[in-house]
């Protein structure tokens, strides 16, 4: 086996015997491709209002019909998928960044710092997130931009990953190779980066997926209530408009059904990813040797 084959085998080792991981990654990839390729085929401009006649059922010209404002719904779905994915993953990344910083500080150094961080996290976790979000979103006068949305949602997704990472760091800190590293002359920050993080990669990945899931949930929740970037055709906003215009009562299934399907697919994909990563992180769940 040459080096390339060895590396390939190493990288894909995680995927063998792990149908959940493969399925999860496939679904997310499929959504991403749907967005990217779709944007090439269908012009995003058609997601704007008055691109076509309003309230048109699906036809050859408008594959998913149009909504009451004349948006081409196929374009809307394509653009919306991209937007929701972006908000979700970026907010997830920011949330994870905060979780890593706080989780490691809290777990490794312990003491007073740990008590404070832990206290804050625990308190924030008990506050109904959506209520807080609603208040924040309502307080922001003016237009909610995409970036603002990302920040608002990120602020809610970091708590649980912080706790997970802290718990893992607490366990790993007790392993004998940590005092060994100290005896080898390593300093604390070095130990965190070089010794702890590589072993925590599966948990960090799981934390990322967790943060992303929380972010997607939050963004769709807010948008469905109308507290999102109003001018952007995100999936959640589309649902909001559909509800506002009574699409369900009017039998305009082509308006509210596609975003629901995409959202369901996204959640199933994220869930399978989490389950698949769980298997990697917890060797007891892994299949055969």
């Amino acid at each position, binding site marked *: 086996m040459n080096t390339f084959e060895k590396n390939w085998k190493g990288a894909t080792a995680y995927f063998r015997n792990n149908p959940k991981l493969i399925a999860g990654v496939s679904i997310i990839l499929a959504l991403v491709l749907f967005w990217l390729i779709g944007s090439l085929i269908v012009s995003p401009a058609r997601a704007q209002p008055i691109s076509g006649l309003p309230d048109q059922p699906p036809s050859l010209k408008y594959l998913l019909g149009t909504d009451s404002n004349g948006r081409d719904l196929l374009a809307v779905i394509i653009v919306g998928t991209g937007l929701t994915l972006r908000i979700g993953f970026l907010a997830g990344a920011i949330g994870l960044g905060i979780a890593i910083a706080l989780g490691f500080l809290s777990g490794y150094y312990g003491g007073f710092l740990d008590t404070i961080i832990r206290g804050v996290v625990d308190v924030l976790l008990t506050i109904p997130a959506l209520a807080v979000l609603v208040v924040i979103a309502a307080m922001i006068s003016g237009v909610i931009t995409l970036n603002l949305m990302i920040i608002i949602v990120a602020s809610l997704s970091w708590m649980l990953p912080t706790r997970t990472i802290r718990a893992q760091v607490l366990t790993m800190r007790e392993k004998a190779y940590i005092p060994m590293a*100290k005896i080898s*002359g390593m300093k604390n920050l070095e130990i965190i980066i070089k010794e702890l993080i590589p072993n925590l990669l599966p948990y960090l990945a799981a934390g990322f997926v967790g943060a992303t899931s929380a972010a997607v949930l939050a963004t769709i929740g807010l948008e469905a209530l109308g507290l999102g970037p109003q001018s952007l055709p995100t999936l959640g906003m589309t649902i909001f408009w559909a509800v506002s215009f009574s699409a369900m009562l009017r039998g305009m299934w082509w308006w509210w059904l596609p975003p629901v399907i995409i959202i369901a697919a996204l959640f199933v994909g994220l869930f399978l990813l989490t389950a698949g990563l769980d298997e990697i992180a917890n060797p007891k769940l892994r299949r055969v040797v």
Partner: protein
Amino acid sequence: MTVLLEARNVTKIFGSSGLIKKKETFALEDLSLFITQNPSSITGVAGESGSGKTTLARLLLGFIAPTRGVVLYKGRDIQKMSRDEKLEFRREVQVVFQDPYEVYNPFYKVDHALITPLRKFHLAKSKTEAFNLIEGALEAIGLHPSETIGRYPHQLSGGQCQRIMVARALLLKPRVIIADEPVSMVDASLRATILKSLRKINKDFGISILYISHDLTTTYQISDNIIVLYQGFVVEAGDVELVIKNPQHPYTKLLVSSIPLPDPDKKWKQERTPIVDQSSIKENHGCKFEDRCPYAMSICRKNLPPLYQTDRYRAVRCFLYKDSPAIPGDAIGEVFVRKE
């Protein structure tokens, strides 16, 4: 005779604040010992669980601070060292831990454990030089670099992993190696090779070793002198030939007689000591072994016996020997045999 690492009248108390009563555990009480160089020595510390031997190792390595007393390296208090002094201490006092696998970060190959300290202590100027040093150390221990470098810890046997740790200790040219149960998790047939390596680096490189173990047999085989711990106290210390072959303290006698000898004609006798489970907390201020001692006298419950020097090279903490001269705890080095 230079004293390198020294524990002077060290006491370590672990406190747990319960809601109503503060429960304190005396892990070690008024313990003194020192490790010398010129001549180098191998000192054994024997004790069962609860004896305080693990706490001793952690104190000597500076991971925890003593409640009373002080741990000195080359005369300096290790808790108060400057950054440079601490780095020197870290390089010159190395350790071999019990679990041969857990000491390696499973993410990296075993090379990582060897290169890291070389790098941090600036012992090699280039990667080539580092690998040369590593190969030299491995070969000195009797390992083939081709069979060990580049492998992951789970690909090697427990014995190999442990020997690599010994090689690592040698690599840094320390003055002292603290070996904390180095062979208890290794197969019987591989133990000999590790002990051989330790003895070799003591003889060939003059590195002093502190060998901590609950296994009296291997401690006897490798050490020159021995300290027997029981519930945080030194109960007997001195020349290992005297202490093990002719134990005087009732606890040492119990320990030695409990070793399963591979001779069906020399079976265990029913012991004279009453079986007392050690989970009951003892509140008496006298000898800690009193409730299990077949020779206990009334004085033993109230008073803690001092160390009595019963031979030139032995001291026993037991009132049975009160006719011998008493020595203070920190004079324990007096009863150690020195190789000249």
